[in-house]
């Protein structure tokens, strides 16, 4: 059967996002990009930080919600606030640097000083504001924020559903992901940041794309020992991709590593033999050693949370749209808060091995994404295909649509949420 797809007179998102394909203009049209910032990033829960990035009172992280610079900060009472990074006087940012610790936020331009909770505390020469400025009305503008399992999200939309409702079916997978501290709470251990010349959705797709792994990451796999390389040979295994609703999806690549609290009596893999011995020599019990070793490489799945974060095996992957054809990626390393140094050190080394500008995996992903951005512009057929696995869908144990591990089920889930948000009227 021949499918006829109209490529002319495309003028709305519903024409650009079909069930099995999306139009290439989603990668390249500047007007669509600006609309995405308004209709998606200004209208949903956007991930900003993990609570461990703000360990003390005064700890802050700068981030963006769409085109809005924001500060995520912990105040003296240990409450977390998200505020627009914009002085209420003339608009200068009041906080610089990606992370840090401060006692207050002071605008460098005219010295307006704000507390950690955003309240306007003092300003130089206040007499000229006598009777015309109420400090209570000129604090930094707060943004609604909610957290789940230490993951801090914010939204500019005050009447949006609660975060936990938005996460819905993804919560179960976040809970599982947080087990990789090896018995300790999850803690961030630094990040790699890099930019690539391509649209943000190319990255969004990638986190739920197992099909590419053995192809583009041949170099990474060949750098592993035999036992580890077999683990990454998962396309013929029992893995799956499940549509979790609201654009979220999970891609289970290594089913035996979904729950890191299970199967603690399995043999210690040879590649972690030295780590196990070191932990045992330090006096950790056999059970603790087994729990740490099982968790050290991370979980066996990628959880893609629409629109800008993934809990990806062993790290957080945060995407930041810069322009229609430029995206910044943060790969945030994770470990256990209070866990043995050898455990966290091993996790850092594993992260460096694959991730980041000089990892054995990321640069090859980056090359592929850059080529998608460039090559997709060619020709008159404007479609990016997303139909892999559509003829073999099933229903998951949780009642969701499920496809094979190398299906494009997760991408279709994300684009349906994209379509829903982009189809809202501009006034929203």
């Amino acid at each position: 059967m021949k499918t006829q797809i109209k490529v002319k007179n495309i003028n709305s998102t519903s024409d650009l996002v079909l069930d099995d394909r999306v139009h290439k203009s989603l990668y390249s049209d500047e007007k669509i990009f600006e609309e995405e910032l308004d209709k998606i990033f200004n209208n949903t829960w956007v991930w900003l930080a993990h609570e461990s990035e703000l360990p003390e009172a005064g700890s802050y992280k700068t981030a963006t919600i769409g085109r809005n610079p924001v500060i995520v900060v912990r105040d003296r009472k240990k409450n977390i606030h998200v505020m627009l990074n914009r002085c209420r006087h003339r608009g200068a940012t009041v906080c610089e640097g990606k992370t840090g610790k401060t006692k207050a936020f002071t605008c460098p331009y005219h010295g307006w000083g704000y507390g950690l909770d955003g309240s306007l505390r003092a300003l130089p020469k206040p007499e000229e504001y006598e009777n015309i400025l109420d400090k209570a009305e000129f604090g930094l503008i707060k943004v609604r924020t909610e957290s789940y399992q230490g993951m801090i999200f914010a939204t500019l939309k005050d009447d949006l559903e609660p975060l936990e409702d938005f996460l819905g079916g993804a919560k179960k997978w976040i809970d599982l992901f947080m087990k990789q501290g090896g018995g300790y709470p999850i803690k961030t251990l630094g990040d790699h940041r890099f930019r690539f010349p391509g649209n943000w959705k190319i990255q969004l797709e990638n986190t739920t794309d197992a099909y590419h792994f053995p192809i583009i990451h041949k170099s990474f796999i060949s750098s592993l020992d035999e036992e580890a390389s077999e683990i990454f040979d998962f396309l013929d295994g029992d893995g799956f991709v499940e549509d979790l609703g609201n654009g979220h999806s999970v891609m289970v690549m290594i089913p035996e590593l979904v729950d890191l609290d299970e199967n603690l009596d399995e043999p210690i893999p040879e590649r972690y033999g030295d780590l196990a011995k070191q932990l045992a020599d330090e006096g950790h019990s056999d059970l603790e050693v087994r729990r740490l070793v099982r968790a050290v490489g991370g979980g066996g799945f990628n959880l893609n949370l629409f629109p800008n974060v993934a809990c990806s095996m062993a790290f957080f992957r945060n995407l930041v749209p810069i322009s229609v054809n430029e995206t910044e990626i943060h790969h945030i390393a994770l470990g256990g808060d209070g866990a043995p140094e050898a455990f966290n050190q091993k996790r850092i080394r594993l992260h460096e091995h694959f991730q980041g500008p000089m990892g054995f995996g990321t640069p090859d992903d980056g090359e592929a994404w850059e080529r998608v951005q460039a090559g997709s512009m060619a020709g008159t057929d404007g479609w990016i295909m997303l139909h892999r696995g559509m003829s073999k869908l099933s229903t998951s144990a949780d009642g969701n649509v499920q496809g094979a591990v190398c299906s494009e089920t997760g991408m279709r889930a994300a684009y349906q949420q994209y379509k829903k948000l982009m189809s809202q009227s501009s006034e929203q």
Partner: protein
Amino acid sequence: MKLDTQLLADVTAFLNIEADMLDNKEYHQWLDLWLESGLYIVPVDHNATDYANTLNVAYDNNKMRLARIERLTSGNAVSTQLSEKTVRTMSRFRILDDVDGLVRVRCAYCLYEDNKNGVRCYPANLQFKLARDGGSFKIAEKVVKVMKSSQYLTTVSYLF
């Protein structure tokens, strides 16, 4: 200040060879410049000192150096297949100290990359620990503090 110009000349000559080997992709000869215990480090945070317990862009011991050279030369890594030669320039060599056969030196460095998106340049401060080895040196540690490494880089298909 008394200058040991002979040591400076020896160190400069050695580091010029190191850079020339990388520019000309003489990777296996480059591996021979290292002590087996040597560490090649590209930190994220330029203020870090405990590199072992800090996330770096690269932290290569001997095993990882060998794996990286295999990656750069095998043809398996798509991001390295079309990589052109690079141009490294170095200047401002300064010997920091020379204690127990270990010379610490730093210099200014810039790598220019012929990339399909244009010529990209990466300025950096380099720090070496060089172990005396007969009339020459072996690298005990190389730390490359690339500008913007704590903010954002692009992906890299060579060694700094």
